[in-house]
């Protein structure tokens, strides 16, 4: 089951660049929440603060609190622990090129010392089914490498890989932007199904996608969160003029 995320007074810097300013918001459990905004507005940085991935950059710094469920992820746990509870899918599909499909999906578990062969098989199958890829690859699990699949399949493989670790939250940074429309629809349908088990945060440039997939949407601009409301409200009658200007395409 997914958990809610509560962000309080989050500020982030890359060196002296104040990338995120005073972000406050509550992301509901088992919902898909979309984050939209022009390039460079901080939405990707924000998402990377949710699983402490921004820390991989040595000049990154963060203040404020992020609670995932009842855990304060900056004070109560180490990044490695957090990242097992909060999975991430990236913009470009990035399966491990030296590994088979099976090994890719199992990598999060195997490389952490998980040894039980039978349950690994089950977990791999379940993850691939949950990411709507099982039928397409079930006969080639160990013989095909992760990188030999098509773009859309690779992305679903990355989703399966993230799901295999059994996270509670799934972060998706523009997951379909590198894919064709058919693959994009498949991913969107997938998100719809995954909502019941996970909490999903999806960064997207495609507003129609946010509208199709997410219950709530947050609009970011210049490092601040300008408006956070139900997707329905944001796209039919937003409260803030800046939001309206962005979604009607009048700027940005």
């Amino acid at each position: 089951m997914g958990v809610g995320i509560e962000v309080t007074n989050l500020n982030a810097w890359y060196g002296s660049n104040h990338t995120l300013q005073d972000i406050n918001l509550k992301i509901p459990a088992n919902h898909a929440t979309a984050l939209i905004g022009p390039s460079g507005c901080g939405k990707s940085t924000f998402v990377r603060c949710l699983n402490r991935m921004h820390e991989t950059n040595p000049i990154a710094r963060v203040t404020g609190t992020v609670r995932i469920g009842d855990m304060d992820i900056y004070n109560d746990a180490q990044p490695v622990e957090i990242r097992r509870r909060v999975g991430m899918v990236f913009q470009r599909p990035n399966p491990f090129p030296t590994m088979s499909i099976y090994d890719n999906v199992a990598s999060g578990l195997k490389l952490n010392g998980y040894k039980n062969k039978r349950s690994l098989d089950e977990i791999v199958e379940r993850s691939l089914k949950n990411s709507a890829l099982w039928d397409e690859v079930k006969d080639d699990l160990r013989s095909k490498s992760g990188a030999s699949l098509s773009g859309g399949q690779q992305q679903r493989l990355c989703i399966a890989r993230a799901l295999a670790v059994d996270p509670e939250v799934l972060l998706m940074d523009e997951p379909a932007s590198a894919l064709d429309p058919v693959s994009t629809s498949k991913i969107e349908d997938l998100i719809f199904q995954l909502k019941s088990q996970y909490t999903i945060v999806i960064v997207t440039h495609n507003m129609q996608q946010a509208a199709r997939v997410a219950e709530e949407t947050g609009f970011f601009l210049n490092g601040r969160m300008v408006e956070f409301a139900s997707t329905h409200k944001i796209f039919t009658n937003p409260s803030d003029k800046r939001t309206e200007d962005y979604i009607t395409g009048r700027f940005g």
Partner: protein
Amino acid sequence: MAIKTSSFRSKYRAATDFMVTGLAITATILVVVPLVAIFVYLLLKGASSLNLDFFLKNPVPEGESGGGMANAIVGSGVLLGIASLIGVPIGIGAGIYLAEFGRGTKLANAVRFTADTLNGVPSIVMGLAAYSLIVIPQQHFSALSGGVALGIMMIPTVARTTEEMLLMVPNMIREAALGLGLSNWRSVLSISVKTASPGIITGCMLAFARVAGETAPLIFTALGNAFWSVNPDREIEALPLQIWVYATGPYEDQHRLAWAGALVLIVLIVLAVSLVRYVTSRGVLKGAS
């Protein structure tokens, strides 16, 4: 008017194209020909002296005919084994540090500078260094000192190649590993290094091939041994060393054996590299990009 000009231009372009292609082909030939020529020459000069004795017998006393270079072949093997045990782990370790953990730090810059300098040190100086550091305190020559000299010579090549290959691993692969909750070192070893391993292995092979033919460092360290020996604590014979001694000696028999030895040296190096390539390529999956 316009038609004439454009036809001239296209003719000019075609001619330039032809000339440059010709130059490229010539350059390629100029590179390949010496290699082929050397190999053919060695074959002509040395193949006649190759017989079973060459591979099974030790050298006979000076002046006599017959005998072989069995001890030299095995000795080279021992020396290269010691060298690899030193050069490969240290080199790969340094390369991993440079690429993954120390990026941008002063220490990394120092390490890189040191490696590049080490690479430029003449091989005889390397031999002298091993002589002072190992032979003199131990008060005797040894295969160990020779192996150490060769091993240190392997380090810079292995380290720099490892670093280059690791840097070529796309960052998004690293991010994927970290995003799964893998610790940093686990991500480096199981993902980055594994992805870069074909290139890293190539680097090791390059270093190996280079030191396999080195003679100067062995002069004051391994020294050479007329008899069969695989003891790391004793003097040991090596193919390049033996070739040099025979080639510069007065006896015709020895000259012939030297040619044969040179041929065998090159063939063994090529075989070793090919074997490693074959063994490691079996592990690479079909269809990987």
